[in-house]
């Protein structure tokens, strides 16, 4: 039987090989090849996730590869969203009118870069040391920046440029923190940067705290936490919808996992309280910055981007509170947010064909002019707003309860107020989008609508299923494994 380690290599290798095959394949077979290989990648990933969850108490820990509960969670999310994004890409490409590259190579270049991005993204949760994790996160930047600017239009170039420069500088600062850690870990080399060895850092608490802050601030620029989030709304709104889904649902929480593991590894050195305060600070700042934007009429994809800022803030709070209750909430939030947010971005492809003004302006009355599309958008927005019985309502409750349980009553209370305000803003946007004033619109052929509708139905079932299992999550062996982290 294949080992978890070998399976981890296969999960990353399949999309990498696919990128190579896409270069060689005839143009007419690109979509079939991409979809077939995406299914294969996801099947391998799901098998690996199954093994990791089944044996959550005994994670695979090596210098290069780690397969633990938190990694399995992010791997599952990335695999499923990646698969759906590859399937939705054909609809996007069908309607795309311009691109970064010459017309004849457009689809091929898109799939090559998408599979490279997906491969790097799948590898991040499996990285066994901080150095490798940084390398992989930086590699996602190069690929995803090309995808953000893929349309080649002025706005896309602007968004891609901001994303590239801000996240590269941020990751440069994070690398300075890693270099400081590497210099102070006695064993040096790869083993010195392994998650479990970071606590052997021997240059003192103040130096460790400095390194931790540099790493967290640098990663925050990539996660999109306020106040270093400026690239996020632009990149999410200008990227092709399947890429926006991967960016928001998979990339941001995956980089958050790197911050989470760093936090856990260095907490014994710098003090648990100091480490948690930084995460809680980023969480509250992100919520405070996001909420006013959720109240404003805004282009649909931009609204989803600000919702990402809010939800990544909620995840930061959960990790910062650090109790089993809060971490159960974080696990639920990561999965629920990924499903609802990816569905929202996928719905943008038929939406933009139905109402081209939606690229720049808030839209209303979609439920009146395109009921099926409106219903799908309603599932996404309703879940993201935290409207019961959305699993995000339950996860936010768990995280807030975890905050009070950990004795951090003030941050939890402030977060509760901000979340209530965010809910009202997004609920208003949902009502306007679905049943507001309707305009005359194109209703003939909406690309990708059938697939989006199917995904909407599946997502609704999964979201309700998540809500149903949520009460049993806290206290499960999976959450126990999340609390323990990488040994």
């Amino acid at each position, binding site marked *: 039987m294949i080992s978890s380690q070998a399976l981890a290599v296969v999960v990353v290798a399949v999309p990498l090989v696919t990128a190579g095959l896409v270069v060689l394949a005839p143009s007419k077979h690109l979509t079939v090849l991409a979809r077939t290989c995406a299914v294969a990648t996801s099947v391998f990933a799901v098998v690996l996730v199954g093994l990791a969850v089944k044996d959550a108490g005994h994670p695979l820990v090596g210098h290069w590869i780690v397969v633990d509960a938190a990694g399995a969670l992010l791997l599952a999310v990335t695999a499923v969203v990646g698969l759906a994004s590859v399937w939705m890409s054909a609809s996007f490409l069908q309607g795309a009118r311009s691109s970064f590259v010459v017309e004849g190579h457009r689809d091929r270049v898109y799939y090559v870069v998408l599979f490279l991005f997906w491969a790097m993204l799948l590898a991040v949760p499996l990285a066994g040391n901080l150095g490798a994790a940084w390398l992989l996160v*930086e590699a996602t930047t190069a690929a995803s920046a090309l995808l953000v600017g893929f349309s080649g239009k*002025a706005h896309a170039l602007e968004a891609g440029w901001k994303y590239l420069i801000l996240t590269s500088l941020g990751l440069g600062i994070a690398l300075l923190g890693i270099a400081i850690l590497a*210099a102070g870990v006695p064993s040096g080399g790869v083993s010195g940067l392994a998650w479990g060895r970071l606590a052997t850092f021997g240059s003192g608490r103040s130096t460790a705290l400095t390194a931790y802050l540099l790493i967290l601030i640098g990663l925050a620029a990539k996660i999109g936490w306020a106040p270093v989030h400026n690239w996020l709304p632009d990149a999410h709104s200008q990227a092709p919808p399947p890429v926006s889904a991967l960016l928001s649902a998979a990339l941001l929480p995956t980089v958050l996992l790197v911050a989470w593991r760093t936090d856990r590894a260095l907490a014994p050195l710098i003090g648990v309280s100091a480490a948690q305060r930084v995460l809680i600070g980023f969480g509250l700042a992100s919520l405070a910055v996001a909420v006013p934007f959720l109240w404003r009429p805004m282009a649909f994809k931009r609204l989803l981007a600000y919702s990402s800022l809010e939800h990544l803030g909620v995840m930061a709070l959960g990790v910062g509170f650090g109790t089993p209750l809060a971490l159960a909430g974080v696990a639920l939030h990561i999965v629920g947010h990924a499903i609802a947010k990816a569905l929202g971005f996928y719905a943008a492809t038929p939406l933009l064909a139905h109402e081209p003004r939606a690229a720049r302006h808030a839209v209303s009355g979609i439920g009146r002019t395109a009921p099926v599309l409106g219903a799908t958008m309603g599932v996404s927005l309703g879940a993201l707003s935290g409207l019961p019985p959305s699993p995000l309502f339950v996860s936010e409750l768990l995280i807030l309860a975890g905050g009070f349980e950990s004795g951090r009553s003030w941050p939890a209370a402030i977060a509760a107020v901000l979340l209530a305000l965010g809910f009202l803003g997004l609920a208003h946007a949902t009502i306007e989008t679905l049943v507001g004033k309707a305009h005359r619109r194109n209703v003939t052929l909406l690309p990708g609508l059938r697939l989006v509708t199917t995904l909407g139905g599946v997502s609704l079932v999964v979201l309700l299923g998540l809500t149903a299992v949520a009460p049993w999550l806290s206290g499960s062996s999976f959450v126990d494994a999340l609390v323990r982290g990488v040994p």
Partner: protein
Amino acid sequence: MTGATGWLLVGLGLGVVVVRRRSIAVGLVTTQALVLAVIALQQAGPASDVVAGLALAMRAAALGGLFFVAVVRSRESQPLRARVTPMVRAGVAVVFILLLTALVPAFGLTSRPAERAVLALVATGLACAATRRSTLFQVLGIVLVENGLALAAIGSPHASSLIIELGVTLDLTLIVCVAALFHLRIFSEFGAGDSAALRSLRD
């Protein structure tokens, strides 16, 4: 690494923040990267250090060539005037350097001058990216940060992983290549590599 070498590296970085012409800035950054490669090869112990040093030299040559092509293919009728004068830019860079060196305690490189040079190069890169309008200068800011981090790897007391070092070099080179590609597309779309033109997406 001696104090004089550190000053040389920081001086080259400050030059990039101050100079007006892109070609001169590219020359300064390439020289800085080559100096780093020479330091790495001089201090090289095991074969892996030599490979890492050679990779730095190749990176310096590749980036120099890439930037040269980018400058030639995006010639502007007149240089972009920065919003802040060279003296103010230099002042911002010096303030960044003083702040970073004051805030970051000794972290265990082989010498304190090496640590200060690392922090100064990172600060100079950030100042360059923050104060220059030209997109090419913003990419050069990233390279200055990268050069500082390369110096940190050279000055580390432990034998670091060759795979990680080569990976970092490759990754950062890749980022700069993508940034150069964007610079050329921005130039063809807007008629100038001017970051001030990239401000239409606001809420």
